[in-house]
């Protein structure tokens, strides 16, 4: 059974009965079992769940990085399912931003060049006012000419956030963006993501297994065993933790 969540018409990203099966026969793994979900514009959604529950898989499918076995995925007006490489590349250029857990920046480029890279690849000029705002909010003004190797992990991740933001994509996908950071740097990055949603209306979908991180979001969707099992609006670390515990016990009972 599938729980359908999110009722708004103006979804930035949408999954419709998405199945994802890896391998075949003995080695078959069903990572997603008919997930349907909508991620509203201008909101910060977290995808929570224990390790192996299919969070990353869902995000990859939503972002068009991976193909779905069944079902459809769309970003804004664009149906992602069925696009070829050229179409997917264009989609990533124009509509999607990414923040990964690590290996996020090109070591040969300065922070500023890294931030502007998606725009230069697409052959677009940055909107100067927006660029200034982004730089202002990430707080990296005096670090723009440094190379990644000269920046701390938190600073690097903030550069990655700025890079995702600067092209104003329809939606930003972040997979465990704070997974490699200490709690203070993690908090900085999360604050920054929340602010970009609150102040600038950016849409963000973030995958995490950390309840504290999830608490920064407007809404949390819980995944277990490839299915959406629950959701929370306006979560706090405590409510997230409680839901997780409940799911754990449910899973144990279920087993």
């Amino acid at each position, binding site marked *: 059974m599938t729980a359908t969540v999110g009722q708004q018409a103006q979804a930035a990203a949408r999954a419709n009965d998405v199945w994802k099966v890896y391998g075949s026969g003995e080695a078959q793994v069903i990572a997603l079992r008919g997930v349907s979900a909508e991620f509203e514009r201008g909101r910060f959604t977290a995808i929570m769940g224990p390790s192996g529950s299919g969070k990353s898989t869902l995000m990859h499918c939503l972002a068009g990085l991976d193909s779905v076995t069944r079902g459809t995925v769309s970003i804004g007006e664009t149906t992602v399912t069925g696009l070829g490489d*050229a179409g997917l*590349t264009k989609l*990533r*250029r124009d509509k999607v931003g990414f923040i*990964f857990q690590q290996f996020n920046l*090109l070591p*040969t480029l300065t922070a500023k060049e890294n931030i502007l890279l998606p725009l230069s*690849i697409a052959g677009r000029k940055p909107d100067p006012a927006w660029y200034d705002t982004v730089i202002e909010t990430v707080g990296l003004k005096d670090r723009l000419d440094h190379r990644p*190797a000269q920046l701390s992990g938190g600073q690097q991740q903030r550069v990655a956030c700025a890079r995702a933001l600067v092209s104003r994509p329809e939606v930003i996908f972040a997979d465990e963006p704070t997974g490699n950071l200490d709690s203070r740097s993690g908090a900085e990055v999360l604050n920054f993501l929340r602010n970009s949603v609150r102040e600038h209306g950016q849409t963000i979908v973030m995958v995490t297994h950390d309840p504290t991180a999830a608490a920064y979001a407007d809404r949390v969707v819980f995944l277990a065993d490839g299915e959406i099992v629950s959701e929370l609006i306006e979560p706090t670390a405590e409510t997230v933790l409680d839901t997780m515990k409940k799911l754990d016990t449910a899973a144990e009972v279920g087993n």
Partner: protein
Amino acid sequence: MFRATLKSLLARKVRLILSGLAVVLGVMFVSGAFVLTDTLGRSFDSVFADGFSEIDVNVAAKPKVQVNEMEGEQTVAPLPAALVDRVKQVPGAASATGVVNADGARVIGSNGKVVTSFGPPQLGENWTGESELLKLREGRAPQAEDEIVINKALATAAKVQVGQKVGVLTAFESKKRDFTLVGVFGYSGDRDSIGGVNEVFFTTPVAQRLMLGEPDVFSSITVQAAGGVSDEKLRDDVARTLGADFEVKTGEQVAADASASLKEGLSFFNKILLGFAAVALLVGTFLILNTFSIIVAQRTRELALMRAIGASGRQIIGSVVLEAIAVGLIASVLGLAAGIGVGALLAFLFGKLAGGLTLAGIGVPAAAVIGSFAVGLVITVVAALLPALRASRIPPIAAMQDVATPDRPLTKVTVAGSLVTGIGAVLLFLGLSGNAGGQTLSTILGGVLFAFIGVALLTPLISRPVVSLLGAIFSWSVPGKLGRLNSGRNPRRTAITAAALMVGIALVTGVTVILDSAKGSISALAQDTIKAELVIAGQQGGPRPPTFDPGVLDKAKALPGVRMVDGEYGDMGRIDGEGTWVAASSDIASLRQIFGAKPTAGDIDRLGPTQMLASSDTATSRGWSVGSTVNVQLTRGEARTYTISGIYESSQLTNPVTLPATAAKDFAIPQPIQGFIQLDPGTRVSDVQPQVEALLADSPEVSVADRDAFIKQQTSSLDGLLTMIQILLALAIVIAVLGIINTLALSVLERTRELGLLRAIGLRRSQTMGMITVEAVVISVFGALLGVVVGTGLGAAVVEALKDEGITDLILPWGQMGVFLGLAAIIGVVAAVLPAIRAARINVLGAIAHD
């Protein structure tokens, strides 16, 4: 540890194959050279053994002037016919036959051109009947003065049939003479020729007159032993009877000696091939070094983990070296096999070109096997040593840290590079200035080697500014900019890759500079000095230069508008016991008036029959002055005493020694080789040229050209040499291209995540490929640039050193250099194809997913 090595080797087989390929190619050159020379050597042996199989003992005159393979063919003076009867009297001799057998019988084909043999001699002989070896296939033996028989291969090449009139040029008559072809013969085993030799048989008196220049003489006497008498005994008996003036050998000895002189030439050829193998292997060394360095860098974590769980630094070195040994072994085996194939192929082609040399079986001499394995293993292990040392220095802690290999400073490499370059420069200076004490060639080669290694070490430092400058050309596009940054990212890697290309390009450039300068200097001198509007000469297609009828000289002189005509003769003579190139001019006045010679002593306008002129260099080195007497032995005739009557200033256009024209009859080739015609002022070249052409109708080996065309033709042999060197060095460049492919492929592998990230944020496939291509082009153009600069430097140094030898103008081949740079750009694009496709195919998800 051994298992771990084996496993890691298998895991990285693709990367190692590419670098191994460089060794395979180098080893292939080595084994191919040995196989080729061995196969040809044994083929010569069997050809000669066959050719002399029916001779028990052979009697010939001692050569008056010994010449080696490089100087030309050995020609001996003839024997008096009366000697045949003396040999017959020797007890144990069943029969003795006088034989005429001399090079220079040139058949004119049905197309009016002389049939050339490209190497093997063109023998003119006297018919002494059929034998086991030689059988008439058609027609009959020559009986009248104007009858000949020729071998089947020659008849086929000349497209002539029995019964036809055939024109022949002979050693003593370069004017066409017509004969009737009365027979065609072949050899046992259904062969049309033996070793590509062309044979023309005349009746004995005609052969004597036309091939030996006098009646009643023979080239040699072949003796048949009576039953029960051994060849050796008969040889000794004949030798005792005839005395010390003759060379008496068994047929076997003659065959072995003839073969040995050809093999001397082969061993020289072998050395040249090995030289090119050395270049290929030097380039291969760079490549292996680079591959192992990259692999060690990529395995930093793995190696650190091994250290952390207790492996010693020694063990780490051992594991890398073991890997190198495995690669070296496999590459040697493959290289040896490929070399055998290439050697066999070249031997086959050579056999075809040399007019159907029947090849003995393909031989794989021990030298090929030992050489292949020694070279393959040593090169690989030596190249892997440095990366192995570096691997052993990886601290165990690196396993726990992120792979942030700090940019090591370039100070040490740069200091070492300057030092090695310095040593190279010193060696080059010593070698080129002639202060190397007898080791000139090895000193120069050592200097070049050190210079290359030194520059390669300096390359990382140079690469930074140059690469960023080169890359700036591409920076207008994002992929271009990224590509440029990538090529500047690892200066050592870029440097070694580029240096590998540098070696090949530098050598080609250097050789081009030297040969172009030589060509330019000689043509400039000839243009300035030779005062002859028309020149008679031909294209040399074998060991024997083309000649023409000396009668043409007088007839040309008689033409209206002709002021002076000079025919040039040459021979390798012995003066006071020392081998010296001697020349003769039909008109001695030409020395001054056509060749611009200036007297430094005595009189050079006249030359009596016992007088001789010498160049100032020769006179100085031999201690001659006007009035000195010298003993001159020519190929034929008795030694004679000449008095030096004049000395002229040495130049590129003057001969060491000039003898009177009458001496030319004793030269190995008693016919003029070149003719120079000076016209009266105001006479039009185009008026005289056709008339001279008509005079040359019966001398089809040569033609008359105006001076500029002649100079071009003379220097065109240098063009052929240059092309050959370029083809051989192309292999070194091919190996360097493999190096670029290898480096790029490894870099793509190393940057999988990065490429995935770029694709994730919107880089198109085509842009990804563009980025890799720019990186490749920047590296290869950088390498070519280095090569052009270093090669020009080396070439200029050699030209400077050869100033005294007459290479006075330094000519830089700008066009060629431009071609090399353009070629390098193309090479870069080609080398990038596979890595670029690989990069473009990278799965975005696979690349960015966490481990």
